[in-house]
């Protein structure tokens, strides 16, 4: 469904991402792990259209979408749950979800809201609360629900367990499993490599802007030298 080839993105003179290549097949859960500063967020942001690549290509559902705007990509079926969530803090939970579904018809959106209420009972309790008052875990769920409102074919998630206490980390990974069982396709950047590898079909390890290892979740978690890979590449 998603094919990224030779993607290179720069910030001024800095090459944050070098020649990255990966694929995501329909229904797969793909993990992107690696130490920080490795370029994982840059990769997601480039795919989602927030950054323009200096080289390489991105193809989604068979179409070349390199350099497309975020609005276009969303309409093509690609949604991003950004790093640090970036929920609209002055808007209520319901309003945040509605914005997520802005591209859908009124009736469709209403049924979407019902779906999310079921999938995220925690949010249902805070339906009319301003999003800024949600706890970290609730905010993360809101961010994911908001992205799901657009009925994406591919859901990108950037560090969903960031800053969450261990119990809430469980919630996040259970959610990932549930979404997988629903047949959704996910590309997830995660700091928590151990858990991500458990949850992934396949994964890529990024370091210093380059893909340095890839394999199935199981293969990679069995590597003794995983920590070493983080340290020394």
């Amino acid at each position, binding site marked *: 469904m998603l094919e990224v080839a030779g993607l290179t993105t720069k910030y001024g003179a800095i090459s944050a991402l070098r020649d990255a290549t990966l694929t995501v097949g329909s229904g797969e859960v793909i993990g992107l792990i690696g130490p920080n500063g490795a370029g994982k967020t840059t990769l997601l942001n480039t795919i989602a259209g*927030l950054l323009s690549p200096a080289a390489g290509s991105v193809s989604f559902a068979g179409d070349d979408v390199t350099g497309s705007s*975020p*609005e276009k990509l*969303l309409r093509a079926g690609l949604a991003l749950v950004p790093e640090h969530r970036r929920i609209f803090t*002055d808007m209520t939970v319901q309003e945040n979800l*509605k914005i997520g579904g802005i591209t859908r018809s009124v009736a469709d959106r209403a049924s979407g809201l019902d779906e999310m209420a079921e999938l995220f009972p925690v949010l249902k309790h805070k339906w009319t609360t301003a999003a800024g*008052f949600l706890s970290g875990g609730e905010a993360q769920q809101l961010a994911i629900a908001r992205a799901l409102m657009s009925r994406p074919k591919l859901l990108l998630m950037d560090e969903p367990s960031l800053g969450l206490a261990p119990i809430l980390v469980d919630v996040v990974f259970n959610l990932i499993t549930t979404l997988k069982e629903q047949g959704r396709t996910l590309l997830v950047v995660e700091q928590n490599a151990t858990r991500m590898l458990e949850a992934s079909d396949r994964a890529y390890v990024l370091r210093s802007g380059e893909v340095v290892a890839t394999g199935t979740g199981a293969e990679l978690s069995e590597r003794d030298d995983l920590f070493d890979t983080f340290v020394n590449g």
Partner: protein
Amino acid sequence: MIELLQNLIDGLGRGSIYALLALGVAVIFGVMHLLNFAHGELITVSGYAAYAASNQGWSWYLITPLIIICAIGASLLIERIAFSRVRGASDFTLLLTSFGVHFVVSAIFLLYVSASVKTFSRPGWVTDTFSVGSLNIEVFDTIVIIVTVITLLATTWLLQRTMFGLALRAAAADFDTARLMGVKSDSVIRGAFALSGLLAGIAGVFWLMRSGSTTPSAGIDPMLSGVLAALIGGLGSLRGAVLGGFVLGLAEVLLRSRLPDGIAPLTDGVVFVLIALLFIFRPQGLITVAHAERV
């Protein structure tokens, strides 16, 4: 006491118009970080349209919607021609662009219409007053206040209950994330300018009814009031802009009636000094919207 009440009503009447102007300025600032010095030109343009229509014998029932339509149209046109080309530029560039637009538009009128004041007839009831006890209340003020309240309520409904309003608020809060949701930058910015034009149009109707005239530089005063009121209220906040408008209106009226005779003509100057002091001691304006915490 009576005088105070009188001042209060006068102040609210003025403040209403300022509130509408300020809201128009704040809406655009919210999405583009642009302080629109050309906001007043929307009223200049509508003024000339009103003048032309008045000469043709149109009644104010027709002139009113004409003014509003002209203001919206002018706002969208200016966005298309000038502001769309400097999106994302530095504050410095945006400020100077808006400054330049103000001059070009007013100069075009100066050149191609006339420098002289164009007057047109005002509806008869503008100068009527009625009495409540020993208070003399202008019909005009009453209508302004009522219409403003209705407009503000309608705008609130637009922002809170429609998808367009939601998109506008989202874009003002976090433009990039709004785009991630599928909000189109062009649509939301044009929508903001249209809304701003609508508000300027309604304010313009009353401004023009009150002045009964238009000149190429007629836009400066309303622009200034709108910009200053929005700044007083705090540029991030729409509620602040409305509050700033009322505060400005009341301050002007109260100062004018309370300052000693010698200084009274300097009321406007005093207002500016107070505003400057406000920015020095509270640059974020009166309203620091208690933002729900960012998680």
